């Protein structure tokens, strides 16, 4: 069973060509599919409920930033088993003089991970901000976060400190495909790259393409009595 057997027709080449084409098409289609993406979080874990918002009360928390493009807040909210009540969200500048975004979640949602719309999305990142969730219903809700404060003030409910900070995740308003992120990926990849700097994304592409070509070359060279 020598290497001559490897030159058995052109079938490996055909397999490589067809397989490669399928691979390229699959990657292209996969990258073109829009997906929901997060713009970030406030980094607060949410192992337990730390604030209870009674009917008519509002929970507010100071945040270092509201990422650009955020279309909704994702929070873990408990309703004590009842259907989710209507909730209102607002994002204000820290001095309270400007309303940056506000939205409303209709009643009927199920307790757990909940997306609260922010209404108009912010084009630019805002910082610092105050995020509020008000409960105009007759049902109390509990909000998850971390007891105490991780170096920041706990949330306030009706003006009084809650048991801890609540977790916010920021969901991007637009579902985006990987292709549409290409520019952003290329520009952000240059951050903190030391030696490579602005060349980083191009180098990655070149190295990956060369590695793929090298793998094919290695396989083909095996048919030449290597």
């Amino acid at each position, binding site marked *: 069973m*020598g290497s001559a057997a490897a030159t058995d027709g052109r079938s490996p080449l055909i397999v*490589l060509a067809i397989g490669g084409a399928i691979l390229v098409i699959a990657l292209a289609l996969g990258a073109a599919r829009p997906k929901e993406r997060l713009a970030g979080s406030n980094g607060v874990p949410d192992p337990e409920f730390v604030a209870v918002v009674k009917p008519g009360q509002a929970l507010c928390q100071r945040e270092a930033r509201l990422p650009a493009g955020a279309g909704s807040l994702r929070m873990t909210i408990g309703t004590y088993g009842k259907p989710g009540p209507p909730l209102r969200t607002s994002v204000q500048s820290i001095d309270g003089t400007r309303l940056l975004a506000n939205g409303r979640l209709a009643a009927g949602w199920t307790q757990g991970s909940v997306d609260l719309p922010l209404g108009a999305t912010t084009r630019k990142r805002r910082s610092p901000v105050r995020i509020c969730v008000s409960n105009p219903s007759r049902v109390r809700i509990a909000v998850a976060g971390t007891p105490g404060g991780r170096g920041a003030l706990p949330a306030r409910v009706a003006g009084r400190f809650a048991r801890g900070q609540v977790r916010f995740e920021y969901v991007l308003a637009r579902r985006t495909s990987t292709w549409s992120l290409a520019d952003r990926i290329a520009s952000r990849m240059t951050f903190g790259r030391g030696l490579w700097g602005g060349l980083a994304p191009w180098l990655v592409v070149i190295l*990956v393409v060369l*590695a793929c070509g090298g793998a094919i070359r290695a396989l083909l060279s095996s048919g030449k009595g290597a």
Partner: protein
Amino acid sequence: MKGLVQRVRRVPRALLWIALVALLNALAWGILVPPFHVPDENAHVAYAQYVAETGQLPQGTADGTVFSPEINRTLGALGFYGVVGRTENEPPGTEEEIAALNSVRDRRLRRTGSGDVSSATNNPPLYYAVEAAVYRASPSGDLLTRVALMRILSALLAASTALLGALFVREIVPQTTWAWVAGGLAIALQPMLGFIGGGVNNDNMLFAASGALLFGLARIFRRGVTPRRAVFVGLAFAIGALAKATMIAFAPAVALAFLVVLVRAGSDGRRQALRSVAAGVGAAALPIALFVVLSGVIWDRPIWGAGAAPPPAPGDPTPADVPARVTGTLRAQLSYTWQLFLPKLGLVTQLHPVAHPPTDIWLNGFVGTFGWLDYGFPQWVYRVGHWLAPLVAALAALTLVRERARLHGRGLELATYALAAAGLAALIGAAGYRYWLDTGGQRFEQARYVLPLLPLYGAIVALAVRAVGRRAGPSLAAAAVVVMIGWSLYAQVLTAVRYYG
């Protein structure tokens, strides 16, 4: 010199291509993954920096881990602790954040910390000594530039791993070039090798040394023992052991191989075999003995062993949470190790925090879990892995059954490789069990710990593609390479989106 050139010329082209593929791939990973986002990279960089700046080895201190101000401030400016383990967060990248990072880079911050470098503290020094040389040789004093250069060394080690792994596979299936090339490429394109090979981590030297060791053993079994071949094995063992203590797991396999050689030599060749084995043992023992003496007499530090377990985070289990009835016994240790690698037997207490360690930790981890274990493929990719792995194993087994005549007289060689795998499993089980007890049930195991066995994985792939015979075999090898390329590319796209998307 002329002899060396001739030797290099005689090396099959495919081997050089395989090494080049692994190098290019690991270099790409090294640029793609943000600094410090390869597991424990902050601790490994801190170790190398401490060696380079002080000429001393790190020591555990009562004050605990304090990296140098330069590393700490850089980690802060990179937003490292806000990103690691939090897939919803990306590294910074706004103009203000770039300015903040640049201001840290421009300041001449102190480059030595307490000397306690966290989980890397008690690692042996060889990998870090070489990385310290790279650090010192850097034309720039900028830490991030130095990390980028240090990652290149790791990429070269990943290329060595692939090259030596391919050489091992070639020894196992020398008759079929396309089969061993497919096996070699399976190693070179393995995403976890590329990912770890793209970062500063002493695992990289361990992987390369393990590849050399298995290749050396295969040569001895197939071509006979000579002093040079035995010294090659001994040195590979010593280099691995001085890079990471895990290499000790291969000691029983090496001992068995040397024993087999001596027994098989017969009375005529025993003297020659004895001399060769003695040279091999000496090549392993001398550097290790020197390290032991220096550790005790000059450095005053533990010889080997992982650093202390990190203190439990709020909400993590504590030692009191481990059920007393399952702790501290040999039976519990064996049960823990069994459950780690094999299906749990019905009546045994579940000891692991994950439901099915063989698939959840090892198979899924081998398919790919990246960052500080904080992101991976969508679930369907792991499901495909669960189908493909038994299929590949079955095809390899089919080849072994079909070609059993060739296995005649190779039983002890196969037993040696099996013992290498069993030794590694036992060591991981022992270390994991200790960690599990100390931390109250936290998980220690990561799939990268089995990557020293990559040459065996390459051999299994090579045997599998041979199963369909010489007509269809090259096509199956080509299909396998396409799958490997797709697997690697997908992992890299996933990484780009996770950190920058």
